[in-house]
């Protein structure tokens, strides 16, 4: 562990990295052959279903499942006591920390149901219809309790309490009474009062954002099979099979190695598939029935019971001098966590002002529980919410001092050596380059018509590394089987095999990647934090270099020369000593492996560190219909530092996909609740993610400022693209209408109302 790849930024000619080959898993995905979570069938399989709370907050007085158990075809019925109750313990999941006591309560309510859709029981039966009928026979006696949905109301002293043992962490002094405020965080340095005193202009505003769902098209699905002796297999759609194994083993009281988890193809995750929902239930049902159990969420269940990201209330204050220097920046962030603590307020607070070099800065954040589904990670968790508000205020400050918003950002941009608001000094980052590219872009100078407006915003995201294993197995014909432990959501099998081919000097077609199950590799942290191309890439490079060492050694043996006189060039061992030139290809060496020392494999088990933040600047033009409030996205340009784009098409794809998710967040997506705390729009009809005709082409500019900690300079790119859009669009709509928009989503009724009230005043 902790082996690190020596940075290798020596200019070298790259043959594979940076090109755009076809992805290795592509054929299965365009022919319908690829198997996703719900696509698995096995003999003797039962169908599992979940009974969910109709109430936002209720005490569960009793559950009577006797009629359901008696129904013909029902093979198992479980409630919370089929899972272990666990003490409070924090473990990482994605970029967030989770608590096992909370996980077990979130997958199946104990004592209290804390949101509409909270699981209270589950059944497994011989058919879907029987399972459905069984659910309707389970009698749950609820005592309905007052609920709270709004974050600020939940913070009031007289608010309905979700957990009567929750005392705010990080509050000084330690509170005497429990509350819904789980945690208080604070970052910053400098002297705010002095900073604001120096300012010529101060802008101070409040913002709100609504919870939005990751909106992956594939619902959660799994298939569990537990045998009579307790050995278990689980097939599921997840961003991390090892995290699923860890969570399920804990919840079911198993040893991790008893449970083999295979990640199916995954139909989108964006952070939402970093936790468990159905998986422990399917295992518990299968354990009771001694038959395989398949479970698939309906779209309604996905919206009601899997994690959206937080909605929030935000307050931002920024001061600047007339020449465009920010003198002080202050923020207060209140994030909804859903029913259990763990909103992404901490990363939100850390990156709120991270694109800027500041002398006086403070960010305070609160993590608040409410009667909504527990939030899960969503692409740069916490960042988009905070940076939407900050980028809106930055735009307004620039406007007030009459400075171009790109120039204003350039003047204050964070760069290598800048002290980040959360403490450490930043390494090389590419914000300045993205801003320069924005200013130079033809888009930035294109003319606008009436009712149109242009917005710009920047965004920051940390990216992570983490525990990673990979192996390369050289076959006897010289082809290479590559095993990684991080599910491929958006083309990582392509980028990872490209790095393997580059290192080994062999054609890409000879590298065959698979995603290994939990028994085929050591522990891997999940696909999240934009870490896969970075971390699994590092592991692959290390494994490839190990293979090369072995290959050189084998050639040296065959030639009876010292290994130091054998180098590896272009897929060949070459003799560098004096005498006749000798060369052996990887294929030739592989063929004789049995005689020269046995199978050739390279393994890497690392804890990848040194992930580099990726920064972006987005430009957007909108047109607002002043009579209906409809906002049309006319043009969009996303500019981002990728460090090194291994497969540029998939880097562009991340930028485009993130931008369009941001368009949805900005304009139409929101959770709508009725007065009983029930979700009114748990479907794609009224939870309105962008459709194809809503958006224009998304132009991209990839900037490459290499990350010195990665052999190819790679930075994660998957999360940053969702950070700037909301600020950029809000700024554009504000410029098109002359009204400052501070509440998301900017849906037509809200926009029209704002335009009309502005005209009335």
């Amino acid at each position, binding site marked *: 562990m902790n082996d690190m790849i020596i940075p290798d930024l020596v200019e070298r000619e790259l043959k594979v990295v940076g090109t755009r080959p076809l992805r290795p898993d592509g054929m299965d995905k365009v022919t319908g052959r690829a198997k996703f979570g719900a696509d698995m069938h096995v003999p003797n399989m039962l169908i599992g279903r979940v009974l*969910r709370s109709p109430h936002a907050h209720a005490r569960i007085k009793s559950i009577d499942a006797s009629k359901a158990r008696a129904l013909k075809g029902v093979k198992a019925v479980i409630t919370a006591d089929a899972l272990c109750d666990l003490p409070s313990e924090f473990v990482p999941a994605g970029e967030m920390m989770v608590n096992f006591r909370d996980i077990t309560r979130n997958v199946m309510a104990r004592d209290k149901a804390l949101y509409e859709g909270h699981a209270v029981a589950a059944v497994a039966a011989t058919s879907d219809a029987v399972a*459905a*009928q069984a659910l309707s026979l389970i009698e749950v006696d609820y005592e309905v309790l007052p609920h709270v949905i709004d974050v600020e109301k939940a913070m009031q002293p007289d608010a309905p309490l979700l957990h009567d043992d929750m005392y705010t962490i990080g509050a000084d002094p330690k509170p005497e009474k429990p509350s819904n405020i789980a945690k208080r965080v604070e970052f910053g340095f400098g002297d705010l009062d002095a900073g604001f005193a120096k300012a010529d202009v101060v802008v101070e505003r409040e913002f709100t954002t609504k919870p939005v769902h990751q909106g992956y098209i594939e619902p959660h699905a799994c298939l569990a099979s537990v045998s009579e002796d307790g050995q278990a297999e689980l097939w599921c759609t997840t961003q991390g099979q090892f995290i699923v194994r860890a969570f399920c083993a804990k919840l079911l009281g198993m040893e991790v190695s008893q449970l083999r988890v295979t990640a199916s193809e995954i139909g989108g995750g964006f952070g939402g598939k970093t936790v468990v929902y159905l998986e422990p239930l399917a295992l518990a049902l299968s354990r009771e029935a001694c038959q395989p159990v398949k479970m698939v969420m309906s779209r309604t269940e996905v919206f009601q019971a899997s994690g959206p990201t937080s909605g929030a209330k935000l307050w931002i204050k920024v001061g600047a001098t007339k020449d465009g220097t920010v003198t002080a920046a202050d923020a207060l962030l209140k994030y909804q966590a859903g029913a259990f603590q763990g909103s992404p307020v901490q990363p939100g607070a850390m990156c709120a002002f991270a694109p800027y070099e500041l002398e006086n800065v403070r960010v305070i954040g609160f993590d608040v529980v409410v009667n909504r589904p527990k939030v899960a990670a969503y692409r740069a968790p916490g960042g988009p919410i905070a940076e939407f508000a900050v980028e809106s205020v930055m735009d307004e400050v620039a406007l007030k001092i009459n400075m171009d918003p790109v120039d204003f950002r350039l003047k204050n941009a964070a760069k290598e050596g800048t002290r980040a608001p959360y403490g450490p000094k930043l390494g090389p980052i590419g914000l300045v380059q993205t801003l320069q590219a924005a200013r130079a872009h033809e888009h930035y100078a294109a003319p606008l018509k009436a009712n149109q407006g242009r917005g710009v915003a920047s965004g920051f995201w940390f990216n992570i590394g983490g525990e990673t294993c990979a192996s390369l197995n050289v076959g006897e014909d010289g082809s290479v089987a590559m095993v990684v432990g991080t599910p491929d959501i958006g083309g990582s099998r392509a980028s990872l095999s490209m790095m393997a081919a580059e290192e080994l000097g062999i054609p890409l077609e000879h590298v065959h990647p698979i995603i290994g199950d939990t028994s085929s590799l050591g522990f891997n942290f999940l696909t999240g934090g934009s870490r896969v191309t970075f971390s699994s890439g590092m592991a692959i490079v290390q494994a490839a270099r190990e293979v090369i060492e072995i290959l050189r050694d084998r050639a040296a043996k065959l030639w009876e020369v010292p290994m130091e006189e054998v180098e590896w060039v272009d897929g060949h061992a070459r003799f560098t000593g004096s005498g006749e030139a000798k060369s052996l290809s990887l294929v030739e060496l592989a063929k004789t492996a049995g005689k020269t020392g046995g199978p050739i494999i390279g393994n890497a088990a690392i804890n990848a560190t040194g992930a580099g933040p990726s920064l972006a600047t987005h430009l957007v033009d909108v047109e607002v219909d002043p009579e209906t409030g409809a906002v049309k996205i006319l043009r969009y340009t996303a500019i981002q530092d990728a460090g090194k784009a291994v497969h540029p098409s998939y880097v562009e794809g991340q930028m485009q996909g993130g931008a369009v998710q941001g368009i949805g967040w900005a304009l139409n997506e929101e959770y709508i609740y009725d007065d009983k705390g*029930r979700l009114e729009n748990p479907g794609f009809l*009224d939870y*309105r993610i962008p459709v194809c005709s809503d958006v224009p082409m998304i132009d991209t500019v990839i900037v490459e400022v290499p990350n010195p900690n990665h052999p190819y300079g790679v930075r994660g790119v998957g999360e940053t693209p969702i950070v700037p859009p909301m600020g950029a669009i809000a700024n554009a709509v504000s410029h098109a209408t002359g009204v400052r928009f501070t509440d998301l989503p900017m849906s037509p*009724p809200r926009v029209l109302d704002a335009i009309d009230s502005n005209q009335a005043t």
Partner: protein
Amino acid sequence: MLAGKPECIATQYTSSNTHREGKTLEMDYQTPTSAEDAAGLLSKDGAHVLAGGTDLLVKLRAGMVAPKLVVDLKDVPRLRGIENDSQGWRVGAATPCAEIGEHAAFAAAWPGVVESLELIGSTQIQGRATLGGNLCNASPAADTVPALIAAGAVCEVVGVKGQREVPVEQIVTAPGQNSLARGEFVLGFRLPNPPARAGDAYLRFIPRTEMDIAVVGAGVALALDAKGVCTHARVGLGAVAPTPLLVGDGAKALIGTKVDGGALKALAAAASAACNPIDDKRGTVAYRIKVAGVLARRAAGIAYERATSRK
């Protein structure tokens, strides 16, 4: 009820559980081959019409309906197809919307009606959804209904007792409810041959560009005399009241005018005044009232353009 687009009026997701809330269904399925048989089957307790299925299947899956019998009408003669003669147009009530949209002569005669059915759901939904379903599902927000009302369409309603003719605006009586008796269904729609210098148009407002339920819908059909004076007008509105509306004052605002700025302003005011909407997840009362006027005005402008360009 015939099936229409996926709709959630009168339906709110069942509170008690997931949308696949389960009751075991002892559900039969029949495909009658005559209108009489169909009417007979539909008179049975727990019978439910299946035409396009785009509404029924959503409701089935959500546990909002649990029919004992599904009566698939697609083999009933004259339920499908488009005909035209000197009397006018006849569109079978179960003709898929995509098929109607592809009928060039019908699209030339009633472009506003075609606009409205091409706004229903997606391409996929239009491959199945039908005019009969869109109407009988009785959503206040059904896209084709205001356009059909503006066009002066009349329904052929068939039941065990025979056939009757009912103007489209008299079918929907409340959200999710219609005036058909048990056993009755809509066999077809009759629309006149539009006179010279006539035009119609339909506009709706939705938050996205596609795939949403109308927040407001407005259909206008009008005819002009040789001098360009409006001699006939009908205005239909959707999603702004418990039922789709025929706005008489809207027609009055146009008739006798040259559909100029003043008339359009009066039309907008009449349309807004006719609204009796609700606040819901799709829009507010104030928003619907204002946008109803805007859309009626814009639709009339398009209908007028069409009328003047049609000799």
